């Protein structure tokens, strides 16, 4: 290599090193999802490594795994122990899906629509949805739905108010969100009719396979309402 070519090559080499170091210094902090990782099960790490630079697909995989397991579990007679184990897996799937893609609507649809109705996982599902609500900052639905669950299933009105207020700040939020927040803040119980409306909304949101459980709850609320009348 001639002296001039050598000098040019060395100059470009130094420029390349500088650009690399400069860029690494600034862009290494860029991560949309870092602060969401609260736990680190080995499965998450393995999936992360497999997904590499495409975390969105890992989230999709977890949602498919959830749906498959839920379908399997719902179509078989399981013992209580087996059911609890299945629910643990189901919750882990959406938890991992959220870490990979916190904006993915399917995560919250399944968290609120399915795991939210399992007593052992209701609070976890609501908190997971609350975390995601801060990410999906254009959407009023997840905090609204989670807020209603916090009220009706956990009787935790402080949590419900927090979520409904969050929902009310989002574009297109229904007045119901603010109304319910005000009611819960005043310590009032939501009406059964509101509960039925909520569950019917949930039924529209979820696929057919998930309807059975919701319809049972609607029927129960309706029978309670007719008994009172």
């Amino acid at each position, binding site marked *: *290599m001639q002296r001039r070519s050598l000098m040019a090559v060395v100059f470009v080499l130094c420029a*390349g090193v500088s650009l690399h170091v400069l*860029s690494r210094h600034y862009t290494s902090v860029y991560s949309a*999802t870092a602060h969401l990782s609260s736990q680190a099960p080995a499965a998450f790490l393995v999936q992360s*490594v497999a997904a590499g630079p495409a975390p969105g*697909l890992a989230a999709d995989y977890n949602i498919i795994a959830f749906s498959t397991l839920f379908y399997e579990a719902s179509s078989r007679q399981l013992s209580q122990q087996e059911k609890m184990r299945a629910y643990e897996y189901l919750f882990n799937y959406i938890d991992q899906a959220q870490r990979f893609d916190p904006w993915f609507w399917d995560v919250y*649809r399944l968290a609120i629509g399915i795991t939210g109705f399992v007593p052992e996982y209701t609070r976890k599902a609501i908190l997971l949805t609350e975390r995601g609500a801060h990410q999906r900052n254009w959407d009023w639905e997840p905090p609204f739905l989670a807020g209603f669950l916090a009220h009706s299933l956990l009787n935790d009105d402080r949590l419900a108010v927090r979520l409904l207020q969050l929902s009310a700040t989002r574009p297109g939020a229904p007045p119901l969100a603010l109304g319910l927040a005000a009611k819960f803040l005043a310590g009032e119980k939501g009406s059964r009719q509101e509960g039925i409306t909520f569950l019917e909304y949930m039924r529209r949101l979820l696929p057919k396979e998930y309807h059975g459980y919701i319809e049972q709850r609607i029927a129960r609320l309706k029978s309670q309402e007719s008994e009172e009348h």
Partner: protein
Amino acid sequence: MMHIKNLALYSFRELMGMLVVRITLAVAVLLPLAAWIFSQFFLMELTKVQLDVMTAGSYLLGMVLILIAVVPMLGADIGGRLCYFYLMPPVSRSEYMLGRFIGAALLLLLLFAVLLAGSEALIAMALEHAPADRRYGISWETGLIIAGTACYQSITLLAAVFFIAAWATGFAELLLFSIAACALFWIMPPVLEAMKNPFLMVGVPTWIVSLVHGIAWLLPEMNAGQFILAALHGQATDYTMLLLHFLGHAGYALMMLMACLLMFARRDL
């Protein structure tokens, strides 16, 4: 310059002559169909799922092309001494390497042009058929960000492979180290991500943390997947950060390529 251009066009033609390259390009053409089929397992945000497949496919196909086409080509050149043909005077070693690199980069550009067209076709389909309230985040620029970031990240990897070729003694060595480079490029973003997690890092010795961070500094920042994910959900793209990311990759590719020229100029063939 003429020799570089001649060798680049020749290399592109040679690579296009490989059956595996044409199969990979055919897979790239069919990828949107696969993405569409995969998305049918979902209820909402189908376009996001489809573009997730396109993203992963872009990264994978870029790596596959490098490993199954470019590495064998360079392996034959250096291990099989085919480079003797191309290195006859007046072609210099630098011209040979740059010509080969540009030829391979042209092939990657073709691949990503095909993938870009596929992504944009899926986006067009979504804009045409998705209900108005479910179009949030679907935008033409997402396809560009996917193909663009995957393209420059793949070209950076290509430069790293050329750097390896500058000192590797044969095909086996070149393949081994190229696979290692691909694996590091693939694995490093999630490993670094995981290392930000305090729960995971409890009990991990400090020297391992330092070692991983040290290795990470030797590699370019491969976190463009985060830009893509944000764009897929309609989050405003931080273009300053994206530009810095691109400049970092350009710098890294230049660094690898210049180091390659320096080492290749000094070795016996």
